[in-house]
């Protein structure tokens, strides 16, 4: 593998607090402080004048649908979407078909990753068998098979007793538990946020309280057991406040927000466009603002996309019948730059921290930094380039994006994994 010499970039590494114009080097797949004269001569040179070179982005919440739902996405196509979006490490959810609740399925996923993936795809396993919320999955075997966390994402464990045992048990292996916070008894048939807009549209509402209750439950259980719970895609203002208080009390909880929840509100549903339907749903402007405040003050640890591909024919339905979820890997950076950097005046380094060092830190992944000796996972982007996103021409197998056809600002130019350019793909 040739050495890499990235020249004249604005190098931003939140982990080492670096933000300066200069060069970045990689040798044998690792970041190195300098190259020898001989290596420099042989090095592949990338002119990055006017561009930002940051650690490869890290997304701890994606759905790659393999095995079982490969009409929506595969590890091959999902990893290409990740690379195109500047992501070099992603963590995929276990709600595949069959669910990833056993070591065999994890092995199947890891084999596919080794064979097909352009980026680092790390699997999670289920908390309960079949994500049914009844019996614990073989968490120890899942850990041995290589999962980085366990979660019943999409099917929040409803039993407090089972959740308590799951986190206690997983703690023994140092495995974080990720939870999609939803009290299902309050959301039967719900398809959007409960509020004035759901009243106007005549759609069943999913109240904030259903999220807040489980977030509170998780805080209480984490405090009781000392186990780490990561709250996925927080969408409600009160949930942000509950996590804030828990952290102030030293409780071991972390939380994430998605690009769509910080950018959009339930007003976007006025035309019943199913590309704005996801779970948890888009909420109100007050919630959206609270998420941004939470990201600013550290209550929310990171940005995750919840990249959830569905085919056109699955999404092209009556609003009630369309599946939840949108894709997000190829638009996340541009949306974060728009909402956090340009609208909310976050320093660029802070915004990138939420997509690199911090998500890696939530799950303890060796990623998200340009420190010397770290894997040479790099995202080079133009923070200002305007481009029009055509989801059909994207790399994901699906095109269910609320940003389809929109002009976005901030574009990934080159993505590097272990010192190898994975985006743009070589013509061959």
């Amino acid at each position, binding site marked *: 593998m040739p050495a890499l010499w990235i020249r004249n970039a604005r190098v931003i590494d939140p982990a080492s607090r670096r933000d300066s114009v200069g060069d970045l080097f990689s040798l044998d797949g690792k970041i190195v402080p300098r190259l020898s004269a001989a290596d420099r001569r042989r090095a592949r040179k990338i002119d990055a004048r006017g561009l930002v070179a940051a650690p490869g982005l890290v997304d701890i919440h994606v759905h790659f649908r393999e095995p079982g739902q490969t009409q929506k996405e595969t590890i091959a196509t999902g990893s290409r979407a990740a690379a195109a979006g500047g992501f070099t490490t992603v963590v995929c959810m276990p709600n595949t078909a069959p669910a990833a609740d056993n070591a065999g399925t994890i092995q199947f996923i890891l084999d596919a990753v080794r064979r097909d993936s352009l980026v680092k795809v790390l699997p999670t396993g289920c908390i309960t068998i079949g994500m049914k919320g009844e019996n614990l999955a073989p968490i120890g075997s899942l850990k041995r098979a290589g999962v980085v966390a366990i979660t019943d994402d999409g099917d929040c464990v409803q039993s407090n007793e089972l959740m308590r045992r799951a986190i206690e048990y997983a703690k023994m292996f140092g495995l974080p538990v990720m939870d999609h916070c939803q009290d299902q008894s309050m959301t039967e048939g719900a398809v959007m946020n409960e*509020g*004035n807009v759901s009243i*106007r*549209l*005549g*759609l069943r509402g999913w109240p904030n309280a259903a999220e807040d209750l489980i977030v509170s439950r998780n805080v209480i259980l984490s405090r009781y057991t000392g186990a780490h719970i990561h709250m996925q895609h927080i969408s409600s203002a009160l949930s942000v406040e509950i996590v804030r208080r828990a952290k102030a009390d030293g409780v071991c909880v972390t939380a994430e927000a998605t690009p769509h929840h910080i950018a959009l509100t339930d007003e976007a549903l006025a035309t*019943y466009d199913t590309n704005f339907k996801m779970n948890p749903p888009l909420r109100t402007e007050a919630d959206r603002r609270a998420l941004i405040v939470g990201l600013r003050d550290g209550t929310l640890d990171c940005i995750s996309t919840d990249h959830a591909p569905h085919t056109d024919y699955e999404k092209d339905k009556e609003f009630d019948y369309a599946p939840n979820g949108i894709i997000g890997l190829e638009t996340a950076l541009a949306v974060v730059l728009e909402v956090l950097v340009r609208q909310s005046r976050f320093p660029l380094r802070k915004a990138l921290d939420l997509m690199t060092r911090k998500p890696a830190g939530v799950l303890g992944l060796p990623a998200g930094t340009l420190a010397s000796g770290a894997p040479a996972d790099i995202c080079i982007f133009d923070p200002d380039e305007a481009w029009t996103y055509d989801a059909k021409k994207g790399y994901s197998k699906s095109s269910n994006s609320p940003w389809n056809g929109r002009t976005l600002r901030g574009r990934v130019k080159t993505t590097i994994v272990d010192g190898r350019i994975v985006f743009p793909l070589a013509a061959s």
Partner: protein
Amino acid sequence: MTWTRRHLITIEELSLREIEQVHATASAFKSILKRSVKKVPALRGKTIVNLFLEPSTRTRMAFDMAAKRLSADVIAFDAASSSTTKGETLRDTAENIQALNADMIVIRHSAAGSPLYLSKILDIPVINAGDGAHEHPTQGLLDTFTMKEHLGPLKGRKVAILGDILFSRVARSNIYALTKMGAAVTLVGPSTLVPHGFTAIGAQVSHDLKSALADADVVMLLRIQHERQGHRHFPSLGEYTSMFGLNKTRASWLNPKAIIMHPGPINRGVEIDSELADGERSVILEQVSNGIAVRMAVLYLCAGNQPEQVISSTE
């Protein structure tokens, strides 16, 4: 002013002027319906498909009747025997109907937003005959038409809508129509079925029956859709009746000339005493009759005709 709308999806998007145009056209058709020959050739040669994907008696029959009075050919699409039960999507069903050269689709669907969705897919006019808990625009138009017949202009009138508001498309369409026409709308019923959020679309919300009914010119009752709510929104039908059912005593709180309305189907003895439903203040069956004239007007206008044409032809 000319009528330019091809679809009728919501009352929310109609202007006051458009509501009045429908009413004027309906009024002209109503006088035709009183003649011995009740048919006009307005839509001769046109085919209207009634795509009813949710059970309906009144609305379906009224649309059927309206189309036939206008000389259109009507095809009824029966959900139970159709391809939707074989897994065909709404898009495919609708595109097939259009490919069969239908000129207009009337859709009833349990999923809110379906008529709007169809109107974006198809080139032919789409008429909403009720979508989930969203809107039922022809019901709102016929209800306000009926109110006007009894009360004259609705500006300044007080209308109380009583019952299951949360799940009611009829309530929403009436709120929009009435507020545009200048009437004051008070929603009343148990707090679980009449959430405060309805104030955002221009109605008052009350849980006190006496003050809500006081001096009301109209009380509109809605069926308690107990089958939709399970047993969470209120304890029992008996308790509902005892707290909110309209009986003689409560009806005496209304303006003496007030009318009693109900879009049907009625649950006698639940939301309304049987006697009141049949009483002289009840206009429930007039609503049904007016449903034909109003739907004739809607079909006629959305097919591309102008209100003046029919109005002058009946003079």
